[in-house]
């Protein structure tokens, strides 16, 4: 069944706590990032050594770091950074991975074998490992970390796409389309893609969350976004040095990561529940049956 076309989709969505809470959290992060383009409470770059390591106060809501920079402002600008990495990395993964997955599934045979073997060994290089290689050659930087995460996303999307596309290719309506005289490309566009879109969208939101996590880890290691641009991961790295003096510094950037990842994950879960009638019909799932 097609959940999107059911008139009560919105009503259903509102009843799903996951979807709603996820939407609110992810929306909040997106809003912070957008607002930071026009306004932040203080400058996120300006040093104020006199006011370093301040605890939260009315002027500095979340306190200041070891250079006296306003933590709240840095987190807002950092959100921009995390979201950007997420969008570009997931976009790359989506565009290349979904294409490869659809291609593998439509052509089968050696094309499929080749693409899947390629993704087999791409799996051997998790985002951090490929980032290490890239930084060893090109030096650390935001672009390189995006590249690393994007490369890691490609085989994942290719696999998920191929898996669900193969399931569609095995359906009788595809055979019917072939019997009607449609070619592989048209069947992929008209039958396969629309039927796997839900899975792909869900996967995209979940990998968005994973990309945010990976970016934070890379920045923490100093391989990602470079100073003076604020990023949540590097804020945590710097805060660790002052763990004994100002523990509050490790709290807020970490919470920012948790909230945004939680938001996108829950959004993905909610979407999956909405799109998959098999899962939402839990009444027959009773144990033993």
């Amino acid at each position, binding site marked *: 069944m097609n959940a999107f076309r059911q008139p009560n989709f919105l009503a259903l969505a509102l009843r799903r706590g996951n979807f709603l809470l996820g939407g609110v959290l992810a929306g909040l992060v997106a809003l912070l990032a957008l607002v930071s383009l026009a306004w932040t409470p203080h400058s996120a770059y300006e040093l104020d050594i006199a006011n370093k390591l301040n605890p939260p106060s009315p002027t500095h809501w979340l306190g200041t770091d070891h250079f006296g920079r306003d933590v709240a402002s840095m987190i807002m600008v950092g959100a921009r950074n995390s979201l950007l990495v997420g969008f570009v990395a997931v976009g790359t993964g989506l565009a290349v991975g979904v294409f490869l997955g659809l291609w593998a599934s439509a052509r089968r045979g050696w094309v499929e074998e080749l693409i899947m073997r390629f993704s087999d060994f791409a799996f051997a290089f998790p985002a951090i490992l490929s980032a290490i290689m890239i930084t060893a050659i090109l030096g650390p930087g935001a672009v390189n970390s995006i590249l690393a995460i994007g490369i890691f996303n490609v085989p994942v999307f290719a696999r998920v796409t191929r898996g669900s596309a193969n399931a569609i290719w095995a359906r009788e*309506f595809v*055979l*019917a389309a072939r*019997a*009607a*005289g449609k070619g592989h490309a048209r069947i992929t566009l008209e039958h396969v893609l629309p039927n796997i879109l839900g899975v792909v969208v869900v996967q995209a939101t979940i990998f968005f969350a994973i990309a945010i996590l990976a970016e934070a880890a890379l920045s923490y290691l100093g391989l990602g976004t470079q100073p003076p641009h604020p990023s949540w991961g590097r804020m945590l790295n710097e805060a660790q040095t002052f763990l004994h003096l100002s523990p509050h510094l490790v709290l807020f950037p970490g919470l920012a990561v948790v909230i945004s990842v939680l938001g996108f994950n829950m959004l993905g879960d909610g979407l999956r529940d909405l799109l998959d009638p098999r899962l939402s019909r839990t009444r027959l799932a009773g144990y033993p049956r």
Partner: protein
Amino acid sequence: MTFPNPPVVDADGLTRHYMLPRESLTAAPQRVFALNRVSLTVRAGRSLGVVGESGCGKSTLARCVMALEPLTAGTLRILGKDPHAMRSRALRRHRQNFQMIFQDPFGSLDPRHTVGRIVSEPLEAAEKRLGPDERRGRVREVLEAVGLRGADMSKYPHEFSGGQRQRIAIARALTTRPALIVADEPVSALDVSVRAQVLNLLRDLQDRYGVTYLLISHDLSAVEYACHQIAVMYMGRIVEYGSTEAILADAAHPYTRALLDAVPRSSPERRRARTTLKGAVPSPTEIVSGCPFAARCPLVEPRCRLQAPEWREVMPGHGAACHLV
């Protein structure tokens, strides 16, 4: 004197092998003989029923006739042209002459397309030069022909019951006004009361449009009802062929007799003693030297295991591959 109708399907020696994945590294690769030199002819306006148990190759036959699967050997002509020898563009145009109906009324319709889009798919794929109005008119016409309403065009498949969905599938097969419809188990997924409706519909459409059917089924009684001729398949071969009346009244091949015997009768007559076959259909992975049915045949003789039986005619138009005929 009546002249026979021209043949719509003319198949000669259709053979389809494929390789099985190996069981172990040392095992020899095995081939499945899904179709083994199958020849048949279906004339315009007639219907041929192909019956047999699972794995006998009847679905492979349907797919090969539809040119959805390649042939290993043999020639096939549909309205005189061989779809397996055509280039893809020409084949796409030729496909409007032969369409297909599938078993599963839930799986054979794309849940994300409207009924209108589903039914017009063959028209669109055949690149027929039809205007949008003409196309809608055609869709409406076939929907009404199968007992649905033109207004159903904008609905989605999940809004219909199983029987209605099978009507949609039949409508789709009709839109290009094909000469031939290949139906693979068209009623076996349906409930008894709905099955009768669809069987009647198939007959009505034949009377009205003169369609030729190649009907694949495991259900002898449905085939008897819907078909003029019957071909019985066993392990990738046709073992008996003849008119429905002849086969029902006087089956020549022991396998056909066993099949007929195995159908449970709902008539309240007392239980009969029937000859049940031993074992199940063996998988057709090796070339059998003698008769493929020898292992299960109740009438088996020594020569059956040594020598493959030749095709013998019982009467003109009715024959079987059995030494005992």
